């Protein structure tokens, strides 16, 4: 009974600490959805693969979304013709490299500031590397889900000879041109175009906030329950045996990160509950790997990429993350 009560106290302590950050996260992601136009942003991005990868990885600073919000944004980036390196870099880095997550990690790991900076540094390194690797794939379409590939801007040669022989829904425009209705850009315009007054947009923002809050809150609750359960119910000897070994501790935390699927805005509080028992490298592995790939995320990624591409990203991210954090365990901490 004592243990149960402790577990509940832990559970609620995680929740009351994390929910404010979750609220900030969903507020930002909802505002961006309705007030930022990615197309203007894409035009400003560098075209070189390496610089593009870096720019994409750092774009999270302007898009403070966690990994649940960034897949839709990355998808919009791809569809609107952003270079591969930019969208992949964004996909991997944005959930970690953004002000809200940085602040939350700072709050949680105030006592060990090196974790905060290593988290950002490693994420940037891994994201830029993978994005750079992917940029060597000239044409992304074989790696994308057909529905996304079809929405991408096509090369000129693929354009049908006659503008009449195209499938889709069209609106006749005044000058004899047509507007393709099922084009994602048009969809976007219809959904959130400048035609809507700000008051309506704000209502949509609040509505979206509530929706995301509900969805992510439920995942947060399950994650916190697991963290609290592990802390009170698993014998400390077991955890220490696993958590103090340089290699198993990292592998265990990476596996945990992938399974728990906790939102990156609040995952540092989850990791914090393992701060006393796990190696620094293992905590970093959790904080770096979790936002890139986890079970919840894979479902979302499948809406954009083919399984093959996700597998590549997963293997690359896992290996890089493992090697970097192992280095920390052996040589730094």
């Amino acid at each position, binding site marked *: 009974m004592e243990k149960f009560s*402790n577990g509940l106290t832990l559970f609620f302590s995680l929740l009351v600490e994390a929910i404010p950050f979750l609220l900030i996260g969903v507020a930002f992601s909802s505002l961006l959805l309705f007030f930022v136009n990615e197309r203007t942003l894409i035009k400003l991005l560098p075209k070189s693969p390496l610089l593009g990868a870096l720019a994409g990885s750092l774009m999270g600073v302007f898009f403070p979304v966690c990994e649940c919000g960034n897949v839709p944004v990355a998808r919009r980036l791809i569809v609107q013709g952003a270079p591969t390196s930019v969208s992949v870099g964004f996909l991997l880095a944005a959930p970690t490299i953004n002000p809200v997550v940085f602040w939350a990690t700072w709050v949680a790991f105030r006592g060990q500031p090196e974790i905060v900076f290593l988290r950002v540094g490693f994420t940037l390194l891994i994201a830029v590397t993978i994005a750079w690797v992917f940029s060597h794939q000239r044409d992304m379409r074989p790696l994308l889900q057909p529905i996304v590939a079809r929405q991408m801007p096509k090369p000129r040669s693929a354009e049908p000879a006659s503008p009449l022989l195209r499938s889709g829904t069209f609106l006749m425009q005044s000058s004899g041109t047509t507007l393709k209705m099922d084009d994602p850009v048009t969809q976007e315009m219809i959904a959130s175009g400048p035609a809507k007054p700000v008051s309506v947009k704000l209502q949509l923002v609040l509505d979206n906030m509530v929706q995301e809050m509900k969805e992510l809150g439920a995942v947060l609750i399950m994650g916190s329950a697991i963290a609290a359960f592990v802390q009170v119910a698993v014998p400390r000897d077991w955890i220490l045996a696993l958590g103090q070994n340089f290699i198993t501790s990292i592998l265990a935390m990476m596996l945990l990160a992938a399974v728990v699927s906790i939102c990156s805005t609040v995952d540092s509080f989850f990791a914090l509950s393992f701060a006393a028992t796990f190696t620094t490298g293992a905590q970093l592995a959790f904080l770096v790997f979790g936002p890139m790939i986890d079970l919840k995320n894979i479902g979302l990624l499948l809406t954009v990429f083919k399984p093959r591409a996700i597998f590549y990203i997963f293997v690359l991210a896992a290996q890089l993350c493992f090697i970097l954090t192992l280095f920390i365990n052996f040589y730094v901490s």
Partner: protein
Amino acid sequence: MSAKRPRGPKTPKQRDRAPWYRPELLDALVLAAWSLAFFRYWLTGKLFLLLHPDYMWLANGAGIVLLGLAVFKLTQGKRRPSYSGGGHTTLLPPQLSSLILLTIAVVALTYTPQAFASDTAIQRGVSDSLTLTRSQPQRFVRQTASEERTVIDWIRTLNVYPEPDAYTGQAVKLSGFVIHPQEWPEEYLMVSRFVLTCCAADAYPVGLPVQLAVSRQAYAPDSWLEIEGKMVTATINGQRQLTIEPTKLETIPEPRNPYEY
């Protein structure tokens, strides 16, 4: 809340559900319940058991924002603009999410958090030194009068200069809860505190030994003591340790804020 329920003619889509089912009302209920839970912890002071005081404003703010969102959902009624873009993909069905959130909010509203006690301290490995995985002190406060140091102040001081003899004869006045470490002789108990850096999830216990003239059974584990006395060095279980020799031992009620920072 249901008294304020805005009523109006139903759209055909709503008709095939139960007549009382309105998703926006369920949302409002979930948000209001969570807001209430935050306010409850705030107003009863139980937030002290969960969070570091530096971050309480965040939790209090969340309570206010959640209340605002609940009011928004409640008053939104039928003039809800529709939006179906953005590619938002959900992992859980929305009703299941709402159900989980509502259930946990109800638990939060009925359950009163408990401060961690001696069992947890022993399980988490109470010690008189901060191990390397603990947060490292970022600043070293100039020596305060020894009787003003709290348990964690003493531990931090010891961490910097561990020789117990250096503190012999210094006056002590501090409070904490009682632990009976199994391996210690009967006339020693440990007076302990949990230390937070962020929230209860990272609470770790620290403690100092107290040398008693009588058996420690006089002071039950988990009871709170205020101790005045002076520092001595005692050899407990084969280890030389800085120990309190009390001149005054008083049982006190559990403080409103049992943690140190």
